[in-house]
């Protein structure tokens, strides 16, 4: 129930990867033959990714994950466009892999506008339009949010960027397999993905860079990835990414229908059995596997621990799991009071989940919430 955090590597994906750990073994006889084969499997994976995104294969660059892809997009465009301007637009609900590079660039003299979102987590396209200045060199707005699942009107936001000729990056790490992506139709210039969010291995991802976009390297060195990303290729990982994206995007509507039915069952069950709770994120424009609920008067980490005791994995926007002072910046951005934000629970459904799993959560959760509420000094006050 925590598939947004990370997924296991599918068995069929892992099996595809294994041979490439041995790539020089079993056939040590021929460097050129082997080099050709390695190259061929990397190019196959590149084509698989390109197909899933509606891109050309030579617009796909492999990275070590979503964070590297986000950092590369933001810092690479910023430094390549330094002479053009110093203004970047992003939003308040981005992943830290986007926010922290932006903050780093602020220290280096760039200016960053953090667009607000409404109570559902949606960015207003008009606010983007207004924020663009002659100095704007990059717009980075996430496709779908990892905490509350809200899906942005990406094509519309991209169209505004395009009209102003500003490169448009989107963090699509949560999107693959869940929402159809078509970088051309959606006006996207750069897009980040990460394999372990769609049943591929950890430590491999990709950045789509539209042909013609000027970007500096993040990792300079050897000539790999057409000189744009140095480092001996993680061949097994890349093979796994390619296979995983192909499988994940083979039947998005079918997958969504399943997830949505499960999620609706969960939300209905929670509403029926637990008072004082509210849905975070947009009721409709959200990832089908994502449910984010705030339970008033209690704190998220303690919920997680008791759920864990019951064998249920989940996640929370409470500060208590992050080591920072404040609850989730995303929940704050949609206007939740901090004490409500602390009581949020994110349940994200995936391939392996069944109705039985959902019913099991619905059996366990009310008792856990009640138990913690009975311990809480806010409860009696709150329900007043």
């Amino acid at each position, binding site marked *: 129930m925590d598939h947004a955090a990370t997924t296991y590597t599918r068995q069929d994906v892992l099996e595809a990867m294994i041979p490439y750990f041995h790539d020089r073994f079993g056939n040590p006889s021929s460097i050129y033959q082997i080099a050709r084969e390695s190259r061929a499997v990397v190019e196959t994976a590149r084509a698989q990714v390109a197909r899933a995104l509606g891109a050309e294969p030579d617009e796909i660059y492999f990275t070590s994950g979503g964070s590297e892809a986000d950092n590369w997009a933001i810092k690479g465009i910023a430094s390549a466009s330094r002479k053009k301007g110093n203004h970047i637009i992003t939003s308040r609900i981005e992943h830290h892999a986007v926010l922290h590079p932006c903050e780093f660039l602020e220290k280096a003299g760039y200016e960053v506008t953090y667009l607000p979102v409404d109570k559902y987590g949606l960015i207003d396209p008009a606010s983007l339009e207004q924020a663009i200045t002659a100095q704007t060199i990059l717009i980075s707005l996430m496709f779908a949010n990892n905490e509350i699942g809200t899906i942005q009107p990406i094509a519309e936001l991209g169209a505004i960027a395009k009209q102003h000729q500003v490169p448009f990056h989107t963090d699509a790490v949560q999107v693959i397999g869940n929402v159809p992506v078509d970088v051309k139709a959606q006006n996207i210039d750069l897009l980040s993905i990460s394999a372990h969010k769609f049943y591929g291995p950890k430590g491999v991802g990709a950045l789509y860079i539209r042909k013609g976009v000027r970007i500096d390297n993040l990792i300079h060195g050897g000539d790999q990835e057409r000189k744009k990303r140095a480092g001996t290729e993680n061949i097994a990982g890349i093979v796994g990414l390619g296979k995983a994206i192909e499988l994940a995007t083979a039947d998005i509507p079918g997958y969504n229908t399943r997830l949505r039915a499960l999620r609706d069952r969960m939300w209905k069950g929670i509403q029926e059995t637990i008072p004082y709770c509210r849905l975070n994120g947009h009721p409709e424009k959200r990832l089908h596997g994502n449910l984010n609920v705030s339970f008033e008067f209690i704190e998220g980490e303690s919920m997680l621990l008791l759920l864990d005791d019951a064998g249920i994995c989940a996640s929370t926007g409470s500060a208590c799991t*992050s080591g920072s002072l404040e609850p989730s910046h995303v929940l704050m951005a949609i206007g939740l009071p901090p*004490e409500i934000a602390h009581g949020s629970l994110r349940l994200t459904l995936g391939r392996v989940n069944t109705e039985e799993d959902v019913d099991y959560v619905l059996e366990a959760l009310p008792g856990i919430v009640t138990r913690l509420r009975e311990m809480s000094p806010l409860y009696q006050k709150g329900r007043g």
Partner: protein
Amino acid sequence: MTGVYSEKVMEHFRNPRNVGVIEDADGVGEVGNPVCGDIMKIYLRIENNRITDVKFQTFGCGAAIASSSMATELVKGKTLEEAWEISNRAVAEALEGLPPIKMHCSVLAEEAIHKAINEYRKKQGLEPWAEEHPHSHDDLECA
């Protein structure tokens, strides 16, 4: 983060001692702040300068609940002077350690006990005791 809780923390979290409210308590201390995700409220029954009963209510993480539970256990039956001396370190040690970023939960517990004792002292017309070593804010995460 939470995966590094000791067995003792988990045991007190799963089976917290002294949860509840003492109606007409002799001393009550509430510390923390919902913004930070931690509120601890300690109720003391005091007879002859001795803590004869103690209850707590906590809104907070596993460490906060376990710290409350442990702190109430430690002060139960103690004189006020003895209870005052129980430091956050003592709570954390009794829990077989807390992760560094969770140390503030034990601080909250110490502070809640102190606050409840001083509330009692004030009600008795006595001078509240001064915090001898107020906790530096390095120790505290939003607490």
